[in-house]
C-alpha cells in the first residue's frame, strides 16, 4: 500500500505540473486567437461549442482500499470546443480547441489521482493507528493480564501446597 501511495503521490505531482503547463499553453493560445479574431467575433464563434462531457466513473480496489476510477469518454469532438465554423476561424482557434481537449483530460486524470492519493493516505493513517493501538495498548494490556494470572496461579499453587502439608500433619497426629 505504501508503494502504491508513493507512486500515486509522484503521479499526482506530475499530473498537476502537466495540467498547469497545459492551462498556461491554452491561455496563451486563446489570447492569440482572441487577438486575431477579436473578443466579439470569438464569443460569437464559441457560443455554439458548449458540449456535454461524458465521464465514466467506476471503482477499483488497491490492496483492499476502494478508489474511484474516472475516464473521459471519447466523443467526436474529443471533449473540446470543435463546433465552430472552420471557414470563419483561423488555425489559432483550432490550436486552442485542441489544447482545451487536452486540459479536460488532464483535469479528469488529476481528479482521479488526487482522490486516490487522499484515500490511500487515510487508509495508511488508519492502519498506523491500529498498529500503534496494538503495540502500545492492546499487547501491553494482554501481557499485564497474563502476568497477573500467572501470579494468581502461583499463589494458588503455594496455598495448595501449604494446605496439603497441614492435612498431612493432621493425618499423622490422628
Amino acid at each position, binding site marked *: 500500500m505504501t*508503494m502504491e501511495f508513493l*507512486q500515486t503521490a509522484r503521479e499526482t505531482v506530475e499530473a498537476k505540473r502537466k495540467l498547469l503547463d497545459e492551462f498556461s499553453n491554452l491561455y496563451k493560445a486563446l489570447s492569440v486567437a482572441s487577438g486575431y479574431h477579436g473578443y466579439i467575433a470569438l464569443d460569437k464563434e464559441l457560443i455554439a461549442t458548449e458540449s456535454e462531457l461524458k465521464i465514466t466513473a*467506476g*471503482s*477499483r*480496489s488497491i490492496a*483492499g482500499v*476502494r478508489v474511484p*476510477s474516472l*475516464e473521459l469518454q471519447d466523443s467526436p469532438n474529443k471533449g473540446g470546443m470543435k463546433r465552430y465554423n472552420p471557414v470563419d476561424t483561423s488555425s489559432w482557434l483550432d490550436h486552442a480547441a485542441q489544447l482545451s481537449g487536452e486540459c479536460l483530460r488532464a483535469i479528469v486524470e488529476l481528479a482521479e489521482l488526487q482522490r486516490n492519493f487522499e484515500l490511500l493516505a487515510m487508509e495508511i493513517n488508519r492502519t498506523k493507528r491500529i498498529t500503534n493501538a496494538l503495540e502500545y495498548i492492546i499487547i501491553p494490556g494482554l501481557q499485564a493480564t497474563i502476568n497477573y494470572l500467572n501470579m494468581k496461579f502461583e499463589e494458588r499453587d503455594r496455598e495448595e501446597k501449604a494446605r496439603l502439608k497441614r492435612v498431612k500433619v493432621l493425618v499423622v497426629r490422628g
Partner: protein
Amino acid sequence: MPKPLENEPSQTQSGQSLCEKMLQECLRGELRVVNAGVPQSQKRLSTLLNEQYPYVLCNDGSTHFFKRSELQYLASLLEPEEQEALPLPILIELGANQNEATVICGGNAEEKIISIMLNMPVVCQERRIRLYKPQLALLRRKLKTATVYIFSPRTNA
C-alpha cells in the same frame, strides 16, 4: 510457572500448538478482509472490449471497473487470438516476501504483455512470473485497472 492442566493438551495431534492454530485462524480472517476486493472471475480481453462499461464483479459484491483506454492499449499489443486468451484483470500475488511479487500467468498472452511492459524477456515458471518491486511499480503504473493485487500466505520461494 504453573504447569498446564493435563486434561487440556497444549499440542494438537498434528503437532501445532493451540496458540499457533488461533493465530492462523486470525491471519486467515485478515487475508479474507484484504482479499475482499479480488474479482470473483476474470473476463477475456475480447469480451471486455465489446462491453459498454467493462467491469468484473468482486468477492465483496462490488465492481472492478476497467479503463477503456487501457483495454485498447492492451488490444493494440496483442493478436486477435491472444486477445481471446488474455484473462483480465491480471492477478498479482503478494506473499510473505515483501521484496517481490508474482504474476499469475495462465498462458502466453500474459507473458507477452509483461515482457512488453517491462521491456525485457520474462520467464513463466509454474504458472507464475516473478517480479521485483521496481518492475511491479512499472507494471502498475502502466496497467492500473488491468491488474489487481491478491494477498496470499505463500512465501514465493
